[in-house]
């Protein structure tokens, strides 16, 4: 049986490669065969690719069943993020689809659905399935039918704010008993335009009322730290006329046509991903026939198609989108099979080139295989491969990267360059929950690191180099200006993180106002660049034990090697001393990713107090006399 399954698998792979079968169909079949052969990891990887490729409900429904059985079999459900979906229509099909969509969003998710008629009760009733499910995230998914806006009201503003209050009240009801992340779908108006073009003109028209409701919903959500899922935008792109099938609504209270559910599930997964901080960070791009038309080694710099030619303009649209990504904090890198001098000359010699060499945080042009180049870039930037996305027009290059570096997301491009920009825009892995000032500045920091590396070459020893950087640390208690960035760092820092406690914004706000808690952010600047807020320390006074206990201690990997940890330790010691406490107690909670800091406490003179499998508790007597502080970073403390 095994050999015949393997033969079938080979057949299916070759028909996929040869384009003989629909790609989604072939990928789903391959995943199924891999599962039957017991290779669950391969099956999940294939399903992930399926999700990025296919959009049909019938296949997604089968993929979702396969995904669920693989996750159950692999014991992944217990560690999964628990997502509840509650709404006003039938949502049973959506739940499993969200699970499979999350494969492509780097999340393992298990769902619970409360559909029709349970919207308010699920939120309010202590015995409800929602409460017992204890969700990490709740997706609120009402439909247009549940909206009670009257026809042509005389006071449109009043009816909209009245309606809004009805929906935002549910947020408070859930928050009263749960720390779960909240996601709110906005409202999709019913298809059909009863007033014709007046729908756009009258402030009291249905269309205008829904637009206003969605606008106010977004404002309220921002204030309440609720993430909006822009299903209104998704439905418009899909086609409002097809978004809902009235037969299915009347028969089974399906508010969204089954054919549109994969798109809706993907949108929810994308917002969940951004909310949980599972965002990818680096786009590695090919050059020839990706960023421009033609091959620079053959056609010469002057022969490349850029401005003024139809194909060239399609490639310039890709460049323009890369610049947008860079402005949002995504790092750009080049991995090209080219002579490095020639590759660079294309950027410097063509005036119609939008990107310049300085836009790239890494630039690898060589004849080595691309997986090797991508690995090299990952080392250079000190980032894991699971932060990478790969863009290349050549299907063979995409395939080798897919096979050798399964952690890297590979964007499938259509044959024609006119579709490249859209394929890139439709890829959702770079989305962030919010765009902070630090995001925009971050790319400049990586570029400055290259300059700092040059300085390193000329300095004779490390200490001299670090001194020459003229580093300064601004330490500030959590406040309104820093909390968004603090929350972001808490959510996404994996490696240099002693406890990996993912506090909610509400919890962090609580720390900010509690005198028993030392809760500070650290912003690092040097003579080249402002790194922004890169480290956080939270410690709680335990007077009974005469100790200040570290709740969270973390640092962005961008500044490893800058001795920031010494400064962090200095300020924890100072915090303990200020509170009249004699001991500093450090907690280390082991995860798969934070081995980097396993020895941090002993390095700073802590003694192991006790340990269990995954948790160590360390203690340090800070003594009566202050020790000299880190001389390499000039620390400035702001007071609350």
């Amino acid at each position: 049986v095994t050999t015949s399954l393997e033969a079938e698998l080979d057949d299916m792979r070759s028909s996929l490669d040869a384009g003989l079968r629909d790609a989604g169909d072939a990928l789903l079949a391959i995943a199924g065969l891999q599962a039957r052969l017991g290779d669950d990891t391969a099956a999940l990887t294939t399903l992930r690719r399926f999700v990025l490729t296919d959009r049909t409900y019938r296949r997604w429904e089968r993929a979702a069943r396969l995904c669920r059985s693989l996750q159950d079999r692999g014991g992944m459900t217990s560690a999964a993020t628990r997502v509840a979906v509650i709404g006003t229509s039938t949502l049973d099909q959506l739940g499993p689809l969200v699970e499979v969509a999350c494969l492509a969003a780097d999340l393992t998710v298990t769902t619970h659905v409360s559909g029709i008629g349970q919207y308010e009760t699920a939120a309010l009733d202590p015995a409800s399935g929602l409460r017992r499910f204890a969700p990490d995230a709740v997706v609120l998914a009402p439909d247009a039918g549940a909206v009670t806006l009257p026809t042509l009201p005389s006071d449109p503003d009043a009816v909209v704010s009245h309606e809004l209050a009805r929906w935002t009240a549910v947020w408070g009801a859930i928050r009263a008993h749960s720390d779960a992340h909240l996601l709110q779908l906005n409202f999709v108006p019913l298809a059909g335009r009863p007033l014709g073009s007046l729908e756009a003109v009258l402030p009291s028209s249905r269309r205008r009322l829904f637009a206003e409701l969605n606008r106010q919903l977004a404002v309220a959500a921002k204030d309440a730290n609720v993430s909006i899922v822009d299903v209104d935008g998704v439905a418009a792109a899909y086609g409002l006329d097809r978004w809902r099938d009235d037969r299915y609504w009347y028969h089974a209270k399906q508010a969204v046509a089954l054919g549109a559910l994969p798109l809706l599930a993907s949108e929810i997964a994308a917002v969940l991903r951004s909310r949980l901080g599972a965002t990818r960070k680096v786009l590695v791009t090919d050059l020839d026939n990706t960023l421009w038309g033609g091959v620079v080694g053959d056609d010469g710099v002057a022969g490349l198609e850029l401005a003024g030619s139809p194909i060239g303009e399609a490639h310039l649209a890709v460049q323009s989108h890369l610049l947008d990504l860079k402005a949002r904090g995504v790092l750009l890198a080049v991995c090209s099979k080219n002579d490095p001098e020639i590759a660079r000359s294309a950027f410097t010699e063509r005036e119609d080139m939008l990107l310049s060499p300085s836009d790239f945080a890494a630039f690898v042009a060589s004849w080595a295989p691309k997986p090797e180049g991508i690995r090299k870039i990952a080392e250079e930037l000190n980032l894991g491969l699971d932060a990478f996305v790969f863009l290349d027009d050549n299907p063979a290059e995409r395939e080798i990267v897919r096979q050798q570096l399964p952690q890297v997301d590979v964007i499938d491009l259509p044959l024609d360059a006119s579709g490249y920009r859209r394929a890139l825009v439709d890829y959702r892995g770079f989305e962030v929950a919010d765009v902070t000032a630090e995001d925009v500045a971050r790319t400049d920091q990586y570029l400055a690191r290259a300059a700092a590396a040059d300085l390193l070459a000329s300095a004779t020893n490390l200490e001299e180099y670090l001194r020459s950087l003229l580093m300064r640390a601004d330490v500030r208690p959590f406040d309104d200006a820093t909390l968004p960035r603090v929350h972001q760092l808490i959510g996404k820092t994996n490696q240099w993180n002693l406890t990996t406690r993912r506090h909610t914004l509400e919890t962090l706000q609580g720390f900010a106002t509690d005198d028993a808690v030392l809760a500070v952010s650290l912003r690092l600047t040097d003579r080249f660049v402002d790194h922004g807020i890169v480290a956080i320390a939270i410690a709680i006074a335990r007077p009974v034990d005469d100790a200040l206990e570290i709740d969270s201690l973390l640092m962005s990997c961008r500044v490893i090697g800058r001795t920031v940890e010494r400064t962090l330790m200095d300020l924890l010691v100072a915090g303990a001393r200020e509170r009249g406490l004699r001991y500093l107690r450090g907690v280390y909670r082991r995860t798969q990713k934070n081995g980097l800091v396993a020895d941090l406490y002993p390095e700073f003179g802590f003694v192991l107090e006790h340990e269990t499998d995954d948790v160590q508790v360390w203690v340090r007597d800070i003594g009566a006399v202050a020790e000299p502080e880190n001389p390499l970073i000039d620390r400035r403390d702001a007071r609350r």
Partner: protein
Amino acid sequence: MSADINARFDEIFHDTINDQVVVHDELSADQVDGWTSLTHINLIYALEDEFGFEFSQSEMAGLANLGELRALVTAKASGELR
């Protein structure tokens, strides 16, 4: 023609409802593990998608067993019913 429709019908039934059950025309929902009102919707959708017709509201609601559904699908798919 109708043999082809029958084969596609059976495959869709297996894909959406239960891939273990032996299909015969007297089967009704209460005899088949996994044939619920929810999976029935998936079955209806898959049949419409496969054959390119639409069930009316009364057709969606009023089917007693698999044989009736198959007869309706065959008639609609071969153009006898519109």
